[in-house]
């Protein structure tokens, strides 16, 4: 037999000034299952809560309804109250008599009648509430960070610094990512390597960080607190436990003319190589595709010269299984292929390059030793045209979004050019100059005012060679005239795009991505570093274009989320999850595609039908993943997925009670 207690709060005069609270309490007394009803001036006050606790004990209540302010305000408070009196906290319902009633309606009978209806609905619902218990999931206090760029490094460091084991997985032979390729950073013009390399070293030396470079995440299973991750460690053909990184092998390697990926093919590397001198770990790998030993079977020079015998041509890929409680995804970005804009001649004219090429050209450890020269003839360029928005903000040929960093790095390039090449003249074709950031507008101003960069608002229609120059033809839309500039070098600010394999990564880890294949945050405002998959967080440009400070901030935010998760031994789960009644579930799995959290999976159950044991498929909800949205319940034709706390019966009872 239900024994429901109803408490109507005056909220001072907030409710009582409009609603006849005594009448509401009186009406409640005759509602089905109600054995006790009263009103009180401030239910949320200490004596108010005490009154509820007393009533629960004295009246042996099995359910409590509080008619008060919005449940979004005090539901948690009252749950604790109820719980401290020995009642399950979920045997409580709050009727919203303030925000939904007394504050929006005049003092009249209809308002009191509505209050009674709302209480009746809450009573009808609570009569069908079941005790719910928070589940507890043990949390594996080890984090996985995918991607060893600045975002991944920062996140790994922050988590490790908080005392938790962290595994940092990087696909390339060295961590460092895109930032390692940059020369200076805007708007301070401090040297990228100078601020990055110490962090690279820190993370590699940190006793809580396990660095897995030249490795890729293959498979992720499990759920928050309990992921099982398979990582493939690609064969480096160098035993890094023996290698000291002396570099002799690289000196001796006969295959020296391989275009360096790190140098954007502006420089060369050997077949046994490290991507760049400050690489971490500073140990080489063998590029099997170009290695003579692998191609011809003859060579073995590196093995011959290695003083430690670290070269191992027989090495195989290895699979490592990791158990982690949280994952930070920081897989970075690719750049748009500017050859798709054939009017700019990229790929046809060697002196049309991208911004990242420019970074390498201006970098003192780059292929030209920091001398800005034309790739074609190694002459120093004077007139350099920078073209903005190559691919960005162009729905017809490129991508719809703004790549966010190009305006600033182009201003930086203009300044670097002017600094490095006396008498050089930077021209910038732009659509809009976007400088939202601390010190950014000032930096852009310096480029124009101090360093004499000429900014031309307009698109370039054609770049073509004339003699050894490149004619850049475009329109100055402010003057309304065509312009033509004879340039020595053209630099394209090509768009930031998602990694070519981003969708695969998202699918393998199990979260969603947008139309551009950037990873989707759980909420654009309120959960910008979370994904829809609990326990998986995002950092850096894999989530969308952003600059270094934003990337670092997001990485730290993701780390903070991980650390918060790890701060408890067990994670309390939301008990209001979906639940399948396997007896009636037909296993059609039409609920599966509507679940945003991939919490529903088919499961095989054993059953006895007509005396025979059979096994069949039903849907099953992983309570660790389920967030309790209930979308599955409406997709289920049989009605056999229900949402605890918002069951079909509860909602139907509310509907009926409101319509009496």
């Amino acid at each position, binding site marked *: 037999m239900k024994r429901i207690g109803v408490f109507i709060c005056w909220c001072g005069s907030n409710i009582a000034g409009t609603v006849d609270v005594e009448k509401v309490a009186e009406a409640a007394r*005759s*509602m*089905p299952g109600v054995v006790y009803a009263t009103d009180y001036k401030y239910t949320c006050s200490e004596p108010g809560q005490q009154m509820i606790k007393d009533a629960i004990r004295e009246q042996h209540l099995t359910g409590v309804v509080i008619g008060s302010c919005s449940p979004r305000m005090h539901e948690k408070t009252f749950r604790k109250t109820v719980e401290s009196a020995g009642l399950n906290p979920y045997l409580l319902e709050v009727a919203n008599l303030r925000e939904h009633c007394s504050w929006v309606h005049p003092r009249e009978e209809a308002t009191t009648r509505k209050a009674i209806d709302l209480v*009746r609905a809450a009573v009808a619902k609570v009569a069908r509430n079941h005790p719910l218990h928070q589940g507890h999931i043990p949390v594996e206090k080890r984090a996985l960070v995918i991607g060893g760029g600045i975002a991944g490094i920062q996140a790994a460091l922050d988590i490790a610094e908080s005392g938790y084991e962290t595994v940092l997985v990087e696909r390339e032979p060295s961590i460092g990512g895109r930032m390692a390729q940059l020369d200076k950073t805007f708007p301070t013009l401090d040297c990228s390597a100078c601020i990055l390399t110490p962090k690279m070293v820190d993370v590699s030396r940190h006793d809580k960080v396990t660095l897995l470079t030249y490795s890729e995440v293959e498979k992720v299973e499990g759920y928050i607190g309990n992921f099982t991750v398979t990582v493939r460690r690609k064969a480096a053909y160098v035993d890094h436990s023996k290698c000291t990184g002396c570099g002799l092998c690289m000196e001796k390697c006969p295959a020296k003319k391989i275009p360096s990926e790190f140098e954007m093919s502006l420089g060369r590397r050997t077949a046994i190589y490290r991507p760049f001198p400050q690489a971490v770990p500073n140990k080489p790998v063998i590029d099997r595709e170009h290695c003579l030993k692998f191609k011809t079977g003859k060579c073995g020079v590196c093995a011959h010269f290695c003083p430690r015998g670290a070269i191992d041509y027989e090495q195989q890929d290895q699979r490592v299984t990791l158990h982690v409680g949280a994952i930070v995804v920081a897989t970075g970005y690719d750049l748009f292929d500017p050859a798709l804009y054939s009017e700019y001649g990229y790929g046809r004219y060697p002196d049309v390059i991208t911004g990242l090429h420019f970074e390498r050209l201006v970098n003192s450890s780059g292929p030209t030793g920091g001398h800005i020269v034309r790739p074609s003839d190694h002459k120093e360029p004077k007139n350099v045209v920078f073209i903005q928005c190559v691919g960005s903000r162009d729905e017809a040929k490129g991508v719809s979004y703004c790549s966010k960093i190009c305006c600033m790095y182009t201003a930086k390039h203009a300044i670097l050019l002017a600094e490095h090449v006396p008498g050089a003249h930077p021209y910038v074709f732009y659509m809009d100059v976007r400088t939202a950031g601390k010190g950014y507008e000032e930096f852009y101003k310096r480029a124009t005012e101090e360093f004499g960069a000429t900014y031309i608002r307009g698109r370039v229609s054609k770049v073509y060679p004339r003699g050894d120059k490149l004619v850049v033809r475009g329109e100055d839309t402010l003057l309304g005239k065509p312009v033509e500039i004879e340039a020595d070098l053209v630099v394209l600010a090509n768009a930031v795009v998602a990694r070519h394999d981003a969708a695969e990564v998202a699918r393998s880890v199990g979260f969603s991505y947008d139309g551009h294949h950037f990873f989707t945050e759980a909420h654009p405002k309120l959960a910008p570093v979370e994904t829809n998959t609990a326990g998986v967080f995002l950092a850096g440009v894999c989530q969308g274009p952003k600059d270094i400070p934003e990337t670092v901030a997001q990485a730290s935010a993701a780390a903070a989320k991980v650390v918060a998760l790890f701060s408890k031994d067990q994670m309390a789960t939301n008990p209001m999850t979906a639940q399948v009644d396997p*007896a009636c579930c037909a296993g059609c799995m039409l609920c599966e595609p509507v679940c945003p959290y991939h919490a529903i999976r088919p499961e095989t159950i054993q059953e006895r*039908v*007509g005396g025979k044991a059979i096994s069949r498929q039903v849907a099953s909800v992983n309570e660790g993943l389920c967030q309790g949205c209930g979308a599955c319940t409406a997709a289920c034709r049989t009605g056999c997925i229900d949402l605890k706390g918002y069951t079909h019966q509860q909602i139907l009872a509310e509907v*009926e*009670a409101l319509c*009496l």
Partner: protein
Amino acid sequence: MTQYWVIDRPRAEAWLRGLTQKQEVLVPAARSGVWAFLPLEAGLAIGWDGANPLLPAKGAFFPQTDPLFRFRREEGKLNIEPVAEAVRERVLFGIRPCDARSLALLDKVFGGPFADSQYQARRAATLLVAWACDHPRPTCFCQSVGVDPTTAPEADVMFAPLPRESRPAQGSEQAPHQREPGSEMQYLVWAQTQRGQSWLESGMDYLARAQAGQVEAWQETAAGMANAHPLELDMEGVTDRLRQRFDDSMWEELSARCLGCGICTFVCPTCHCFDIADWQRGQEGLRFKCWDSCSFRDFTLMAGGHNPRPTKKERIRQRFLHKLLYFVDRYGAVACVGCGRCVEQCPVHLDITEVILRVKGGEWANV
């Protein structure tokens, strides 16, 4: 000595329509293409020439949904008020001998020591006027189960259509083209009970005495109809044989085709299984009786989830054993009146005649 009367169709119509002034008269009629026994009212055509209604006469006494009582919780007390249906005198006109027999069978179920008062009250208040059946359907087999299509002993009054040649001109001399089709039809009418007799006496304005030869003419027709046999079944020993065939593979084979719907039970004039359920709104509600069907999966489903008749096999076995065995054991007659409704309506052509055939050793095949 039975007194015979004759009435033509227009007069009969006038009589019945006149009766509706003071009581309800249920007649076979179609609404939206569905044949049933409907209260006669202006604009409703009596289905003189129509088929036996899809919905049998049982609904007039045992409605599909039938409120029992109302309950209300007031000040901690539960008040129960019976639903006092004012049972009014009424005439059920135009039922055929098969449906009339079904009422006799239902009387056994709803009578006896545990009588259903609502059913009984409705029965008592209803005068039955039966038609001798001159419209057998290809699916009819009433004679095989012992129903004589020409007469319904359960009825208060019988109407029998007279063969055309035995109808001397009666009444007005209207030109044939001015008449309603069928208005030339005449019926031989006689009472079978005292109550029927009184009813006929109240309708003397419309009735004429049967003339010489008309009774004989009807008797001759009736004798011919008694051998019509659209569908003939041999019921001999069926009940006893079924006693041995509870575990027969026949049930599994038959049930393969069954869809588990309730058509056969709902159109059956003798099926009488019902459920009792509540309809509740807040502090008050209604308890009602409603038709149920043994072919429904949830008919025997228990609260704990166990179902003693878990598959279609057990369910159709129950249905046919009930009709042909259990009912016979309990009430001494098969619970089938041969109306053929299930034969005609089953979407997959699975019906009682096939069961009877198989029990009698017939193969699966056609008749």
